């Protein structure tokens, strides 16, 4: 019997701590497939952020540097400027990238740092128990918006950070994808591959925003979570190439 699938070897074999149906596992695998297919796995280093994926280095077998919450892109800047031969990516959640780290994100993008930024958007702060994130949808109930997020109550609007970053000259590529069904998973892989190719070709800052399932916090089954992304989340955060 011939095997027609190939789980990438740079993806470690140990089971993950992620919830059943969480999108992280799919994106980790995609990143591993991409860096193997592009032949760059030996010179790729990752910057881990703070969120459910804080121990991403337990799952992907490349060198990693941790970063303080929100500061991954500053740390990645330090790495890339000293070692431009390395391929450097950050892997960040919505709080890390768009809330506490929004200044570091904006300025790394504005400087056109030659980096690949993978942004996981699950519309909440997962690791800490489901608080509001900048990306939380209007009326979405979270631990800190127990009555639903209401902009008129001073709780802010869903932040379209990808659209904002796309307006900067230093940014060469922005695409929003999801891992909510097989077709989208394939498109997500294409986008992530392009984001790494752009770095290899020194084109500047590339961002891929991945709408990802968070069944536990959303109080949904994994299948329901996928539907939620396809039917509701994409109304606020439409998929597609933004830049």
């Amino acid at each position, binding site marked *: *019997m*011939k*095997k*027609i*699938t190939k*789980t990438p070897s740079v*993806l470690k*074999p140990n*089971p*993950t701590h*992620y*919830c*059943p*149906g*969480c*999108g*992280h*596992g*799919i994106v980790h*695998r995609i990143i591993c497939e991409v860096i193997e297919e592009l032949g760059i796995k030996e010179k790729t280093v990752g910057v881990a952020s703070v969120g459910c994926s804080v121990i991403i280095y337990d799952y992907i077998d490349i060198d990693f540097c941790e970063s303080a919450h929100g500061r991954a892109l500053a740390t990645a800047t330090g790495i890339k400027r000293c070692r431009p031969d390395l391929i450097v990516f950050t892997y960040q959640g919505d709080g890390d990238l768009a809330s506490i780290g929004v200044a570091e994100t904006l300025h790394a993008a504005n400087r056109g740092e030659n980096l690949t930024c993978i942004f996981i958007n699950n519309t909440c702060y997962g690791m800490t128990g489901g608080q509001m994130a900048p990306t939380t949808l209007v009326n979405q109930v979270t631990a800190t918006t127990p009555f639903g997020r209401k902009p008129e109550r001073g709780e802010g609007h869903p932040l379209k950070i990808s659209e904002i970053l796309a307006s900067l000259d230093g940014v060469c590529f922005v695409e929003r994808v999801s*891992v909510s*069904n*097989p077709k989208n*998973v*394939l498109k997500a892989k294409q986008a992530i591959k392009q984001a790494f190719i752009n770095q290899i070709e020194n084109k500047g800052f590339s961002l891929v925003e991945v709408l990802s399932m968070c*069944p536990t916090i959303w109080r949904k*089954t*994994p*299948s329901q979570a*996928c539907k939620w992304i396809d039917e509701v989340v994409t109304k606020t955060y439409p998929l597609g190439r933004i830049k």
Partner: protein
Amino acid sequence: MYEVKIEKDRCKGCGLCIEFCPQKNLEFSKDLNKRGVKYAVFNKNKKCIGCKFCYLMCPDSCIEIYER
């Protein structure tokens, strides 16, 4: 002809592979695995077209697909 092999005790029972199989070849087991959950099982009697949707959607690398 294709066959889906699922690592039983690695499966977290998320059901994404079952949800997205266009042939409905996958279903939940009757018994529990070492994790204490119902795991995904491939029905060998049905026809797998090798679309790899289950492999694409599995967050835990439980699945490998073989060509017979």
